[in-house]
């Protein structure tokens, strides 16, 4: 792996834009770190950090010049890999027109190791089975992934437990480690496309000191996980915990609002919206994000299989940490902690697992 150092991200962003990529990176908006299109490095959230705990997220001032000094934001790559609304088809007069897949050339700057793991999970779901999704493939192929190795994990992070981070090891085109004194970025290349881009920007080769400093960032980050999960035998242990009294207890706090599933970078469930024009001559179908916390989700013959809140919470947690292995041969949880932070009542999956198992 070729490793280089650059003092600024400006040339990288300019190079990506000149290659026709829309660069999407972290910015601050609405009191949070949000992905948005950027055109220069000054738009990155320099000196901003975050404080995350169950049910609470606040931006903070870091009093330094780090531009990636925060943990997982409410946005994951899912919005780009699996947009919330995808037109499927249009049918008129007995003919079916498949919707043209939109695959914008997006360079996603600042994805974390947990996000890369989540993308790998989605790849397995949408491409790895008997019915691969060509639209998803097109979007993925058009997307360039520039990872950032986490320096400052959040209070709800547990990627170390899930074996997905904090260092990005695979699945990226480029991976950055932000270093201080002096402020610089170590860049690892993970693909031919990534290597081409690095060649085109000004850089110097990484020294032994740079590499050691970067390793130290990831080593320290790994010791600063806000949460942990004992994953030993979790698939079997959780599958056998149908009758735990904890499900009813957590349901008393669960709003079934779906926030956890919406912010989860691997939750892929969808439903389909049917629409017609007023003449009824044109019918359209659109795939939209759905959640196992809604009653319609498990509706059979007019009633829900999982009518109770406890059954719905059990479904979600069990799917993430247990039955996902049966279905896709991997964990459905990558340890990003978003479901913990963004649960309005602060339900903490790591705490629930601790009680249930």
């Amino acid at each position: 792996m070729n490793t280089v150092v650059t003092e600024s991200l400006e040339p990288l962003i300019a190079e990506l834009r000149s290659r026709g990529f829309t660069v999407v990176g972290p910015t601050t908006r609405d009191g949070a770190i949000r992905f948005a299109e950027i055109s220069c490095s000054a738009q990155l959230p320099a000196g901003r950090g975050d404080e995350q705990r169950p049910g609470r997220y606040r931006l903070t001032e870091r009093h330094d010049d780090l531009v990636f000094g925060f943990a997982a934001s409410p946005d994951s790559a899912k919005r780009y890999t699996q947009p919330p609304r995808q037109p499927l088809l249009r049918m008129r007069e007995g003919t079916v027109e498949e919707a043209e897949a939109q695959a914008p050339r997006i360079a996603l700057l600042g994805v974390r190791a947990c996000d890369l793991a989540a993308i790998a999970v989605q790849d397995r779901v949408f491409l790895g089975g008997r019915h691969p999704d060509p639209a998803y493939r097109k979007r993925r192929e058009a997307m360039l992934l520039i990872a950032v190795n986490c320096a400052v994990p959040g209070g709800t992070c547990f990627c170390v437990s899930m074996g997905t981070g904090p260092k990005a090891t695979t699945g990226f085109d480029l991976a950055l480690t932000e270093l201080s004194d002096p402020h610089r970025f170590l860049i690892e290349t993970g693909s031919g496309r990534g290597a081409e881009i690095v060649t085109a920007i000004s850089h110097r080769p990484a020294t032994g000191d740079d590499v050691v400093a970067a390793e130290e960032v990831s080593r320290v980050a790994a010791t600063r996980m806000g949460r942990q999960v004992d994953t030993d035998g979790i698939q079997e242990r959780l599958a056998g915990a149908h009758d735990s009294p904890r499900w009813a207890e957590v349901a008393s706090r669960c709003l079934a609002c779906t926030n956890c599933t919406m912010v989860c970078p691997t939750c892929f469930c969808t439903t389909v919206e049917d629409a017609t024009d007023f003449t009824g001559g044109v019918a359209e179908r659109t795939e939209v994000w759905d959640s196992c916390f809604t009653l319609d989700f498990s509706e059979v013959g007019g009633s829900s299989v999982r009518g109770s809140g406890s059954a719905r919470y059990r479904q979600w947690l069990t799917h993430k940490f247990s039955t996902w292995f049966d279905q896709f041969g991997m964990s459905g949880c990558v340890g990003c902690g978003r479901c913990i932070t963004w649960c309005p009542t602060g339900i903490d999956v790591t705490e629930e697992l601790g009680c249930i198992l």
Partner: protein
Amino acid sequence: MAGPAAAAGRPRLAVWKFASCDGCQLTLLDCEDELLSVAAEVDIAYFLEASSAVGPGPYDLSLVEGSVTTPDDLRRIQHVRRVSKRLVTIGACATAGGIQALRDFADVREFASIVYARPDYIATLERSTPISAHVPVDFELRGCPIDKRQLLEVISAFLAGRRPFVPAHSVCVECKARGNVCVMVAHGTPCLGPVTQAGCGALCPAFNRGCYGCFGPMESPNARALNAQLRELGMSTPELVRVYRTFNATEEPFRQAAEEAESDT
């Protein structure tokens, strides 16, 4: 609107008003471009807000706005049901009794005596009730006011003979799909979104405001859990009672939520 010749064969639509502010009917007029397509496919036979021309019944689809608050309303809703093949209520008044159902929590005669110089001229019922309390209703469209997209969806679904895509899940689903950050988590702003039915497109959170619950309770509201969190965010008991006693105060889950807030103190 369209004359009788043009109306031949098209489904006939009627729009009725009961106790309400007319805002939901205005949503239909607000459809502008789409209204022309609607008018092309549907004979808008009775819609006093838009036209004084009154086509006689029966009607294939009646949209009913407003709640039942007077003895005359009681008679009139029976007539509306008789002349309507399908009856869809539009808005919080018709579906839940509306803001005027706050009288249910007080003495309406006392209100009348304070507001009107001659309260004896006022013929009003003790309670403001939804249409479904009086006649069978085929579909209830929520909201104060209703959402334009949802109204068009209900009309086109009716024309296509399908179930309208009007999910009963929480506002949070469309809030996150829209790309909003959760105002409760990120700002500490009290929000009824988690217990409120979707439909508005998460309008208020999109402008960094908490949800006011205009669309009434979602399918499985857990207001007790939300109340605990709202108290954490600093809401007092009277404030909690007040947020549930608005446009959908008499919807059972919101009625209970307010009562629980009172009894939990």
